């Protein structure tokens, strides 16, 4: 019994940095879970990745301007760069014939090139590893408050926009015919994606942050045929990945960000193989056909 305690609970009781990481993961899971599900259902799973690349230059610029790891400068830089790209892509997709993926690709590549240019012209030998890989084990109060604030905003915005967001995904034409809420909803959702990725990069780094968004969402698809359940499962899986990843990293000494995402990846593979809704089990072991 005590070994189980040592393995699963002890680290959190004993070390404050583990408790902070746990709280951070809870905040991230609450926001990233539902946002990831909607991204997946809109067939924009790779958008998170593109947005992460768009955010990176903003965060790097914030780092340069502040002359170091400033929470405020890097968050603001990431949010501004992300919003600019998301709004630009969203508006172009709505106003022209170009589809959202293509317009997003165009904008994020511009942002990325600009970021790389600025960083190399400045020529400073900065340590951007923090931005790339995050530091979930070193979350200070201000960062935790930021993550919690982002999660709170995400949940409130999702609660308000739930109906138009679902409608915008299922039947955008119908939403246009009954309401003007389509465009604001679409843009607000893109803003949420940015917010959650910026939150995620403090803990996991820009690239790993996408993993916590998409892997639980994709795994949840195999467990539920209903949107509400899918969102709840995605949140739980994200949280579970966070906890297990932290423990794995604690016990083995592996870096925590990749550990968390790898655990999320294992959950995904497990769901893919054994999930009851539309997974591999359904395909290869369909069972005998029913009477009616």
């Amino acid at each position, binding site marked *: 019994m005590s070994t189980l305690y040592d393995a699963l609970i002890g680290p959190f009781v004993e070390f404050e940095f583990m408790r902070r990481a746990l709280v951070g993961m809870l905040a991230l899971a609450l926001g990233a879970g539902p946002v990831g599900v909607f991204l997946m*259902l809109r067939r924009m799973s790779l958008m998170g990745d593109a947005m992460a690349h768009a955010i990176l230059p903003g965060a790097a610029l914030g780092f340069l301007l502040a002359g170091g790891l400033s929470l405020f400068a890097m968050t603001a830089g990431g949010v501004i760069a992300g919003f600019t790209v998301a709004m630009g892509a969203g508006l172009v997709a709505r106003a022209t014939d170009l589809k959202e993926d293509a317009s997003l690709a165009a904008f994020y590549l511009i942002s990325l090139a600009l970021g790389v240019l600025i960083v190399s012209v400045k020529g400073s030998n900065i340590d951007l590893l923090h931005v790339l890989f995050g530091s979930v084990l070193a979350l200070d109060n201000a960062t935790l408050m930021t993550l919690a604030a982002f999660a709170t905003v995400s949940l409130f915005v999702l609660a*308000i*926009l739930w*109906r*138009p967001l*679902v*409608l915008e*995904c*299922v*039947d*955008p*034409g*119908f939403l*246009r*015919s*009954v*309401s003007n*809420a389509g465009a604001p909803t679409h843009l607000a959702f893109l803003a949420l994606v940015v917010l959650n990725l910026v939150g995620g990069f403090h803990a996991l780094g820009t690239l790993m942050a996408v993993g916590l968004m998409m892997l639980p969402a994709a795994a949840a698809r195999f467990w*539920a*045929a*209903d*949107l509400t359940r*899918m969102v709840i499962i995605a949140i739980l899986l994200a949280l579970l990945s966070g906890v297990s990843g932290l423990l794995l990293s604690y016990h083995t000494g592996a870096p925590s960000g990749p550990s968390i995402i790898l655990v999320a990846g294992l959950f995904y593979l497990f769901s893919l193989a054994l999930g009851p809704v539309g997974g591999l089990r359904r395909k290869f072991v369909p069972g005998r056909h029913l009477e009616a």
Partner: protein
Amino acid sequence: MAAVLSFRNLTLGYDRHPAVHHLDGSVNEGALLAVIGPNGAGKSTLLKGIVGALTPLAGAIERKPLAHDIAYLPQIAEIDRSFPISVYDLVSMGLWRRSGLLGGIGQKESDLIRQAVATVGLQGFEDRTIGTLSGGQMQRALFARLLLQDARLILLDEPFVSLDTRTVSDLLEIIARWHREQRTVLAVLHDNEIVKEKFPETLLLAREPVAWGPTREVLHAENLLRARRMCEAFDDHAVVCKDDAA
């Protein structure tokens, strides 16, 4: 009878090419109007213009109901049928005008939804996800949503394509009910037998209006032949239409 819709020298189109060319006329309140014509005749374009999804290239549409008081059923393509949403939730969207962004779905609304689902013959399907429905069942669900929209003007774009006769006759019964309730219904159709039997008024469109009036006068062989001849492809080198200068 008051006109719900008036078209004044209306031209609608894409990239300056007209798809509906110089349409004049009006639709009276309570009309049951079939819009027919060959493919590419501008029928869907006309409906898009009426709901305001397309701005006229020239002329104007005068609408009595506000844009959001129109129930519009487009050709089915735009719906994402893989989205995990139940028939009940899909149909409930018809209550948007009543419940809006945040309004709750209470017992009364829930009864309305179940009633609409029953009217279109989908009892027992409420909890099924839309991905499991057949084409005909999906169209029935969309008619249930239209019922809940409770709009004075209803636009249907090819509502019967690839449906079996029983589904068609069930849905026609709903259209007849709307007609009895003095709602105005415009339907784009291809089956002239249905038009003859159920729609008192017909507009035959072939980019330009060929004929508009009582159905048996419009559905003449020579009109239909003319319509078929008039509907040609866009000319990339077309010059600016002279009528606009006049």
